[in-house]
């Protein structure tokens, strides 16, 4: 099993698939030139509808992460141009969630500082 998706999450399934695959590309589990599973195989493995996987792959093609090769399948092309913007939007969403959970701004800025700590010094 490549990864699990949560059908009851508020994140649409096709989006979860996109995120997971992009995550694997970033972490190096998937390298540029690797093939991702066929639509049919992934849908069977994840227990989701073929259309959902197809839609996820379409999105990834649009974002420049995957490239379809006729007769062969989908191959990893790169990280994708809009990926950074997308990640920032996701971060904003998470921040709203934390805000709703009454998490303090200072707490969050602490984390930001921690993450960028090395960069500021170096």
């Amino acid at each position, binding site marked *: 099993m490549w990864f699990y998706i949560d059908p*009851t999450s*508020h*994140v649409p399934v096709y*989006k979860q698939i996109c995120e997971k695959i992009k995550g694997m590309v970033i972490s190096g589990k998937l390298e540029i030139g690797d093939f991702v599973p066929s639509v049919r195989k992934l849908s*069977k493995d994840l227990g989701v509808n073929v*259309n*959902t996987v197809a839609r996820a792959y379409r999105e990834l093609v649009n974002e420049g992460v995957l490239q379809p090769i006729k007769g062969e399948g989908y191959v990893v092309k790169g990280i994708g141009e809009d990926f950074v913007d997308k990640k920032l939007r996701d971060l904003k969403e998470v921040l*709203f969630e934390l805000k709703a959970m009454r998490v303090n701004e200072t707490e969050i800025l602490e984390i930001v500082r921690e993450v960028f700590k090395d960069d500021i010094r170096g």
Partner: protein
Amino acid sequence: MILEVEKLSKIYKSGKGVKEITFKLKEGEILSILGPNGAGKTTILKCIVGLRKADSGIVNLDGDFSYLPEEKRLYRWAKVSQMIEITKSYVDIDDEKALKILNDLRISPSEKVANLSHGQATSLYLALTLSQKADLYILDEPTWGLDPLSRSYILERVKEIPFEGKAVLYTSHITEEVEKTSDGVIIIRDGKMVESGYIDDIKEKYVAVRTKKSEKIEGYLYKETSDEKIYIIEKDKAPRDFEPANFSMIVESLMRGVRS
């Protein structure tokens, strides 16, 4: 397109019924009709399979169907094995599949229908319906009355159907089940469609907004506590900071239908 339903309407003398139901179903898709009891889900299915006649609207079914009714009644004098035999004389049944489902759900072929519990009778009916060779499987509350193990077993069997290129249309009032099984959904309230589409799209379409009690906002009320209200609103109509909304929250709000 396996099934096209356009503006299907049927009103009973009591005043209840369904109005202008419209949806499409492709091969390889699972579509659920979600709604509270009495909302009209069964009426829609009965009009599609020919048990009832719609007042107006079009139903285009391109292929054979296999139907599981809401009232799962079979011939009480028959043995389970006889029911398979009888059904086989009417439609094309995959014997092995039927017997496997019965075996997995622990129903003996020699048992009489009259001696089956409600859940077992439902399981038998499901075995007969799912083993029938058809293009579209139309199931009315397929998991109602089943124990949790049988329920997840049946949902797994339902999820396998798209891989054979067939489609499923089923009704339910359990949102979580629908979320785990279906691609698309039609949400019915008082006989009218309040939302329809792929579950993924609906998750993206709606968001949750919290407001103070006094504040005026346009949306579907989800919950009201002592100091705040939570509304479900379409994302592009949302006023300001919103949060993502769970599918159950969205469905509950739409089904409750309390608009502000």
